[in-house]
């Protein structure tokens, strides 16, 4: 028998528990168990009176361990740890038995529920006597933050933090920040010019004294933990000396080599081998693309270098590797557009006048390849009729089951822009459901209905150029079932726009592994809680913002960026945080140096000392999963608060009734 003095408190939770479990019987029975000094039942243990009971009993009866049988520890473990601490005990000398969520709410069988409650209480009592006092681990927070991705979500996050006085490193893969938003023409539903609202923010990032911006750069490696991350950034060679370059653009103008711009112009136009993706690019320095540069191919040309007034072109430039220390990381890596070629029956890539949403954005953009003129692929003909196909790649079991959230609204915007630029053109929207949740969104839909856009409810079966009926010759025919009238319809049009959905970045899995966090089946990063904590991740110190977490429009991305930075700012201003002391520890004397645990650890928190031939857990890196503890063949590893002794005792307690039966029958 242990010398510990345990107090057991069984909560009625009104009738939530007491309605199914005979709480008085459980409390009375618990009082007769080994080590239990006092046992009570009470209406609401979480009330201040309930908590005071615990505090009082600790002081008056000299309790050394506390068990509360009530709701889930996810609900009130913190509350009762607090009460235990106020009573003068270490908060970890407490254990909770979940007799509500796991018991009274899950069954109507009162006898079985009471029996199960006793087992759960007995398990907790047996476990708690083996608890040891633990101290939370203080961790200092480095005030610098890494923001990965310079789209609108990343910009929003970086500016909030920088304006709060904290330093931000922004790393962007493309030559310029701005992300997808920089490619858009207008934004729904207000029809603000996208560039007009975005570029001032980009300039602010570029000029902010608290922001170090590295574009054309990628994160190669991340190590460390909340408060103390070490990040290796590869700054790819631009072949342009940023110190000398003034951003005058002469190199770009004089470069003889034209390349199709697949990224910014969505393949609709050309860029030079040395280029800025768009005139308002931030930073203003161009990037030289060696794969397409005549000099790198043939060893001559150097037109840019010869004509650069400041001599900034540097063909010898090498990638630069930079190591930075940051306390927190915000991932705002954005999304990829669904590749419409994956749906061959829609004809994208085969039928010339089938466009993707992003192509159309560039087409209507005043700064785009056609100067904002809506024309067919030939570059001159204006379409007289346009079909907009919703849900391309979204809400479809064969591609992505989820709704991409923005396509209905941007399709409406396209319809409006066609009406505005080509007043005589007919616009047909093929939709499954119109989804317009958002401030001013439904009103925008109504506006389009009044403008005379046609809405046909039905998923498009096929886009074809095979004419069957008179009037279809030379047109693209969109075939769909109009589900409101129950008929097949064939609509001949000149232009088809595919409202392609949002997908996670192709490399999101690798990125999530790089940062030691998870992504879901679709590749979107997983938030800590889908409702109550949508910006934090399961990895402390790593936050997510924007479409990398799931399809999102601009206001939502901005809000999430700001929210992530608020979380980071909170951590920075606190300076240190306390971490749960649930950590593994290796007893050096017992360690055989087999190194089995080294590979078990997903966080590389276990190092092997070659000199002493033993492994050691770096406490600050350890997240406390206990996988190494279970794997150690020498039982040299202890998992604090989940020791073998504690779990094995809990098992014995849980099975007190059947174990006894066994003893009787044997």
């Amino acid at each position, binding site marked *: 028998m242990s010398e510990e003095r345990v107090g057991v408190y069984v909560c009625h939770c009104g009738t939530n528990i007491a309605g199914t479990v005979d709480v008085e019987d459980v409390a009375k029975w618990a009082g007769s168990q080994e080590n239990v000094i006092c046992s009570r039942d009470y209406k609401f243990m979480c009330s201040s009176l309930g908590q005071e009971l615990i505090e009082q009993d600790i002081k008056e009866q000299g309790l050394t361990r506390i068990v509360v049988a009530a709701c*889930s*520890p*996810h609900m009130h473990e913190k509350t009762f740890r607090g009460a235990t601490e106020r009573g003068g005990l270490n908060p970890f000398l407490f254990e909770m038995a*979940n007799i*509500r*969520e*796991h*018991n*009274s*709410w*899950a*069954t*109507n*069988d009162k006898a*079985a*529920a009471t*029996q*199960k409650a006793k*087992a*759960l209480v007995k*398990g907790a009592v047996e476990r708690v006597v083996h608890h040891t006092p633990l101290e939370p681990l203080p961790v200092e927070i480095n005030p610098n933050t890494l923001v990965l991705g310079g789209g609108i979500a990343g910009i929003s996050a970086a500016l909030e933090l920088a304006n709060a006085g904290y330093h931000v490193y922004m790393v962007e893969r493309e030559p310029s920040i701005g992300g997808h938003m920089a490619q858009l023409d207008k934004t729904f539903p207000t029809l603000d010019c996208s560039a007009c609202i975005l570029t001032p923010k980009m300039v602010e990032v570029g000029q902010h004294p608290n922001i170090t911006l590295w574009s054309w750069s990628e994160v190669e490696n991340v190590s460390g933990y909340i408060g103390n991350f070490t990040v290796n950034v590869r700054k790819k060679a631009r072949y342009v000396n940023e110190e000398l370059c003034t951003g005058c653009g002469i190199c770009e103008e004089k470069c003889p080599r034209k390349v199709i711009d697949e990224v910014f112009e969505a393949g609709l136009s050309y860029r030079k081998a040395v280029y800025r993706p768009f005139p308002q690019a931030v930073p203003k320095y161009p990037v030289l693309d060696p794969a397409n540069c005549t000099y790198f191919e043939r060893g001559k040309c150097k037109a840019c270098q010869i004509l650069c007034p400041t001599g900034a072109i540097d063909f010898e430039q090498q990638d630069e590797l930079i190591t930075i220390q940051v306390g927190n990381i915000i991932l705002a890596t954005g999304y990829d557009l669904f590749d419409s070629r994956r749906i061959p029956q829609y004809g994208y890539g085969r039928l010339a006048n089938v466009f993707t949403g992003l192509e159309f954005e560039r087409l209507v953009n005043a700064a785009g390849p056609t100067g904002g003129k809506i024309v067919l692929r030939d570059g001159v003909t204006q379409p007289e009729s346009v079909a907009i196909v919703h849900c391309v790649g979204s809400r479809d079991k064969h591609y992505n089951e989820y709704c991409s959230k923005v396509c209905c609204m941007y399709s409406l915007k396209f319809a409006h822009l066609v009406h505005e630029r080509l007043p005589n053109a007919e616009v047909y929207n093929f939709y499954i459901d119109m989804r317009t949740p958002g401030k001013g969104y439904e009103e925008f839909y109504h506006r389009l209905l009044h403008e005379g856009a046609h809405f046909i409810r039905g998923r498009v079966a096929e886009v074809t150029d095979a004419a069957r009926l008179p009037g279809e010759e030379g047109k693209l025919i969109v075939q769909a079932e109009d589900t409101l009238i129950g008929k097949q319809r064939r609509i001949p049009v000149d232009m088809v726009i595919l409202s392609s959905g949002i997908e996670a970045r192709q490399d999101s899995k690798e990125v999530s*592994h790089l940062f*030691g966090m*998870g992504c*879901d*089946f679709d590749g979107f990063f*997983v938030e800590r809680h*889908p409702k109550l904590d949508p910006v934090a991740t*399961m990895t402390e110190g790593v936050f997510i913002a924007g479409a990398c977490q799931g399809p999102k429009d601009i206001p939502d991305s901005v809000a999430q960026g700001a929210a992530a930075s608020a979380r980071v700012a909170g951590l920075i201003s606190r300076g240190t945080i306390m971490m749960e002391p*649930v950590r593994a520890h290796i007893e050096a004397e017992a360690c055989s140096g087999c190194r089995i645990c080294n590979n*078990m650890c*997903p*966080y590389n928190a276990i190092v092997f000392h070659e000199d002493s031939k033993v492994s050691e857990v770096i406490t600050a890196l350890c*997240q*406390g*999963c*206990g*996988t190494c*503890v*279970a*794997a150690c063949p020498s039982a040299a590893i202890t*998992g604090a608060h*989940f020791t*073998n002794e504690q*779990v*094995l005792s*809990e*098992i*014995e307690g*849980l*099975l007190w*009734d*059947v*174990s006894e*039966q*066994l003893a009787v029958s*044997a």
Partner: protein
Amino acid sequence: MSEPYEPVIVGFLCNWCSYRAADLAGTARIKYAPNMRAIRVMCSGRVDPQFVLKALREGADGVMIAGCHPGECHYVDGNIKTLRRFTLLKQLLRQWGVEDERVQLVWASASEGNLLAAAVDRMTEQLRPLGPLRWKETVLGRNGHGEFIPVEEVPAVEEV
């Protein structure tokens, strides 16, 4: 023997997914068999095979290990390590004559309370006809003293 046998199942539920799934099942008032008694572990990867053996030895009729879905582990891939250990453990238990249904591995995310509840119901139903495990007789030997079993009576090991 009109009363059906009520098996006792010990559940090892990971803190992040399956324990929360069980919480959710309760919050959603999903009714399921009260036969599982849960132990919270931070990760299913913490489930040392000796925990399972201990539970069976102490009189449990079955053990359920539940974790996050593969790829969704809070600790990156702890559940994959659980899966590997589980496979080995099953081989061992099979050789001892412990029926496959008695030790099960379940994946349930925090939002899948219904799935976890259904798994408990299913396992309870599967264990009922098997009756008590009788660890001493089954595993330790006929009278609990580890008698040798004749070779021809040793159950064949199936492919996993």
